[in-house]
């Protein structure tokens, strides 16, 4: 993981801050809570709670992989919102859909490690 990504998403406690991850992905905190299977109120009150850390770490890792491929944050966010060529699905829709975190991290994992079409 790049230092820049770590600095951007970690709170002073050293844990990953859900609010900062939501900003990275340009998502509302309530939507991120849904993706993580958390209650929005609970996550809002405790943005770096232990229970959310594994899911948040997966999202940070996925972002880091995309940083190794796409030009910058704007390009990553734009790519997340656009339909995939020859596929039609938008990466963000995968993340927001059923089993979203698993589907999304698999997509990014395949792309990053040279998975074929």
């Amino acid at each position: 993981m790049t230092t820049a990504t770590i600095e951007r998403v970690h709170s002073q406690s050293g844990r990953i801050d859900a609010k900062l991850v939501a900003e990275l992905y340009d998502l509302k905190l309530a939507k991120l809570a849904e993706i993580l299977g958390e209650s929005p109120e609970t996550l809002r009150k405790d943005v770096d709670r232990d229970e959310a850390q594994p899911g948040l770490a997966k999202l940070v890792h996925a972002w880091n992989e995309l940083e190794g491929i796409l030009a910058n944050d704007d390009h990553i966010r734009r790519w997340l919102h656009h339909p995939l060529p020859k596929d039609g699905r938008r990466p963000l829709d995968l993340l927001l859909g059923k089993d979203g975190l698993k589907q999304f991290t698999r997509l990014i994992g395949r792309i990053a490690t040279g998975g074929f079409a």
Partner: protein
Amino acid sequence: MIEDLKATHFAAALQKAPPLPFQATVTRFAWEIHRASITSTVGAARWGGRWHMEGVRALYASLERETGLAELTHKFAPDEPLKPASMVSLIVSLDGVADFAGTPLQNALGVGLRDLIASEADGGYRIPQHLGALAYGHGLDGILVPSAARDGGHNLVIFVANAQRTPFVVVRNFHHRSH
């Protein structure tokens, strides 16, 4: 999930197809950040793919360089600025492969090209994953498959765990001896 009848037919057709020896130089690309693991099967085993299930050590490579690049970049628009990538050539020698890219085996299986390259969103991994699992289960070293990223392109999937001997050599430095 493949229906029982079709699964039985697939298994019988593959059983009848004689494994073919395969020797060629093939190509694989990787993003620069993953250059050190360009021939690793860890990612493939973790995430699965069109022709293999999660847990299987499969190495995908392309018979044409253009196909290899298309496979690496297929999830991005042609005008999307992308970071650097690396390429390797692999000299492959396998004892037995099944040629799913060829019409004889496709006809025997009763499948068409469209069944093998449909997008994942349309459930397009279902048949190839099943066929790949059959070939892997039969102990084949690899399979030749059509590319879903480039029309007319061909790929090789090496089942590393099945290969009885070193399946490929990465081209790095050739040492010429002059006389």
